[in-house]
């Protein structure tokens, strides 16, 4: 029976809050009748508030913060690929034009915090980065840093050293690819 009530309440309210309330009530071991009355009233109050308030219409999903929208759970996280748009990035012989374009972006958006040697400035030096990480991981991280810092074990250890979350520099897909090429050049790719 308690399960049925929980089911019913959650159907009426679609609210995790009331779901918790119901569980709480269950734990207090009150009589079934009392519990049902309280939860139903609370459910009704909740359901009736929608039409009168603005919340249902105006605060639909599109009107609220969406920082976590579209992110995957921790269990699905692939530490080799990272998380973001890129899966398989084909790299071949060094493309000098792309690397030069990457250098220009590096100067404006990256060089304040990263050296090209292995010396740490604000963030780690770039030397060897293409040996430590897959191309897709690099491109995902530099275009989607916030989501990855929250999940990636390597990035979390790095954060403990650097203490500054890498800023999102709003790189385009092309920018990211060019930076990858510049990193490869820095690591001696031919």
């Amino acid at each position, binding site marked *: 029976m308690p399960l049925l009530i929980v089911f019913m309440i959650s159907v009426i309210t679609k609210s995790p809050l009331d779901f918790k309330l119901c569980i709480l009530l269950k734990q207090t071991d009150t009589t079934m009748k009392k519990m049902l*009355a309280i939860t139903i009233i609370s459910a*009704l109050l909740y359901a009736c*508030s929608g039409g009168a308030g603005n919340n249902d219409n105006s605060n639909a999903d599109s009107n609220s913060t969406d920082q976590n929208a579209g992110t995957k759970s921790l269990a699905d996280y692939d530490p080799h690929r990272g998380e973001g748009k890129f899966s398989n990035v084909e790299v071949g012989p060094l493309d000098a034009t792309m690397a030069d374009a990457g250098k220009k972006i590096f100067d404006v958006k990256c060089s304040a915090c990263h050296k090209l040697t292995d010396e740490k400035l604000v963030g780690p030096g770039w030397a060897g980065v293409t040996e430590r990480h897959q191309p897709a991981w690099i491109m995902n991280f530099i275009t989607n840093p916030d989501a990855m810092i929250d999940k990636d074990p390597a990035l979390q250890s790095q954060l403990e050293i650097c203490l500054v979350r890498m800023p999102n520099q*709003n790189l385009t897909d092309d920018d990211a690819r060019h930076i990858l090429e510049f990193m490869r050049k820095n690591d001696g790719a031919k």
Partner: protein
Amino acid sequence: MKLSNVPAALALAAALMLCAYSCKPKNTANAVSADAAQKTYVPPGKYDEFYDFVSGGFSGQMSVYGLPSGRLLRVIPVFSVDPQAGYGYSEESKPMLNTSHGFIPWDDLHHIEASQTNGEIDGRWVFGNGNNTPRIARIDLSTYNTAEILELPNSAGNHSSPFATENTEYIVAGTRFSVPPDNADGDVPIDSYKKNFLGTISFVSVDKNSGNMKIAFQLKIPGINLDLSHAGKGPSHGWFFFSCYNTEQAHTLLEVNASQRDKDFIMAINWKKAEEYLQQGKGVKQQVKYAHNVYDEKTQTATSTIETEVTVLDAMALPGIAYMMPCPKSPHGCDVDPTGEYIVGSGKLAALIPVLSFSKMMNAINNKKFDGTYENIPVLKYEDVLYGEVQKPGLGPLHTEFDGKGNAYTSFFISSEIVKWNIKDLKVLDRAPTYYSIGHLSIPGGDTKKPNAKYVIAYNKITKDRYLPTGPELAQSAQLYDISGDKMQLILDFPTIGEPHYAQAIEASLIKDKSKKFYDIMQNENTYAAKGEPNAKVVREGNKVHVYMTAIRSHLAPDNIEGVQVGDEVYFHVTNQEQDWDIPHGFAIKAASTAELLIMPGETRTLKWVPEKVGIYPFYCTDFCSALHQEMSGYIRISPKGSKVPLAFGTGDKAPGGKDTTTISK
């Protein structure tokens, strides 16, 4: 527990709720309805339904609230200096406050008008008027910056402004204080008012794409006081209506001397006719001086140009431009209903609300039924233009907004209330008390063709006991009323900044998605931008020292500077390298006589600093940006004038003297 008990419990709960509603106290002492909290509660992380752009009156600012929560979202400096953003202090923004009288860092921002297309709010810009040193400002709704300020010549007291025509063809400005024209000798006795003083109405055109403002023409009108105005719409599009007081043309003790006549006027202006005269070359070019200040988003810099000419059409000499409609007792508000047929004048000393009819006015004009002239402008008969009067609505009517369902909402200053009345039958439908002495009121879209009449907001002049006391002055109170039902329901009080006059509430969905998140640093064309840390440098040009500084979490480059001397003009051009939303950096230096800079991501801002004493001066980021924000700082060494200390600068390895050799002492 059986399932059959569920309907019974449901019924019980429903009965309880019904009782809760019907048992609501009815006495006026409890004017707040029981569900007010629900109606105004916006849970954490959720957004409001409306933006409310509220004038800041004598604060010179514009504030942005969310409705229905009443949460303050932003304060935009317009006709004011702002130590927070450095507006009016930074080299880039100083020109915005230039006028023909020099740098004027304050004004009295009275009314807000949103740009319109087809008589509906289009969400591109909002405009605000400066009443004191006559100006109009345009605020960009993607950046929330003041994008343009245009000064108005031949003007004083720009009050009946900045109201818009239905496609924002024009924003108007009218003179509350008549004065001798700018090109005349103003050194005249004040008691020669009737002879020498004139009013003007400026029609400011607004470019459809850029929004840039330009005085298309000015109308010369008699020396009276214009109070408020609104454009015609629909059938009355092409006309503009202005309330006029002091038709007595008094120049002293106006409180008495400008309240003599039983009726003043609402002046009807046929601006399409004025456009015809303009095309026929009937305008007179007048040499005047007024500032036109434009903020360029590419260079992130404002420029101020002094314009030297304005074209004036004489509404007293060119027939068909202006007509006078009598209106009782010093009318204040002048509001046109959504159909464009009814013009509501609010005689602030009258005990009735006259509703004038546009079609009746046109009939009278077409039949030339005039009752003489006022300063050569034809006067129509009150009964010929009157649709009807709302009898005994309250005391001291000021302003009227509309719900688009045939009803009007009028604010009453003296009797402290909002009165809802029906336009067709002129019957009062409801009244709601305000706390206290309401001035303006606004309904989202309430002065357009398409109101969204969910709320009416009262902007009160007196607060007294509504909030915890804060000394002799209290924040002026705004009050939110739910008007979705037949009766107005007070649901929220919220404090405001300065003295709000008019406001415009705009549906959030219309503008929220085009809000800018940062400026693309690659598009930054500021002359002094340092794009990327390799471009950070210090350049001396005579006694001017230009510091091209970069800021990123969490260091400044260069952060050590030497070789600067007492009396040098030091310009810190700080470029924020961040490219992420809501990551501004601040910049402050010890003993700066101005303010800080607050630099948005991708933006460059410049602080001028003239050191007066030898010593070491720290500078730092003021906006908490990361866990290492406290480390985001640096030093500049100031040497005596003529010192031999060479110019040197850098950060880390490149700092003067090389790498920081400090070791941790144990």
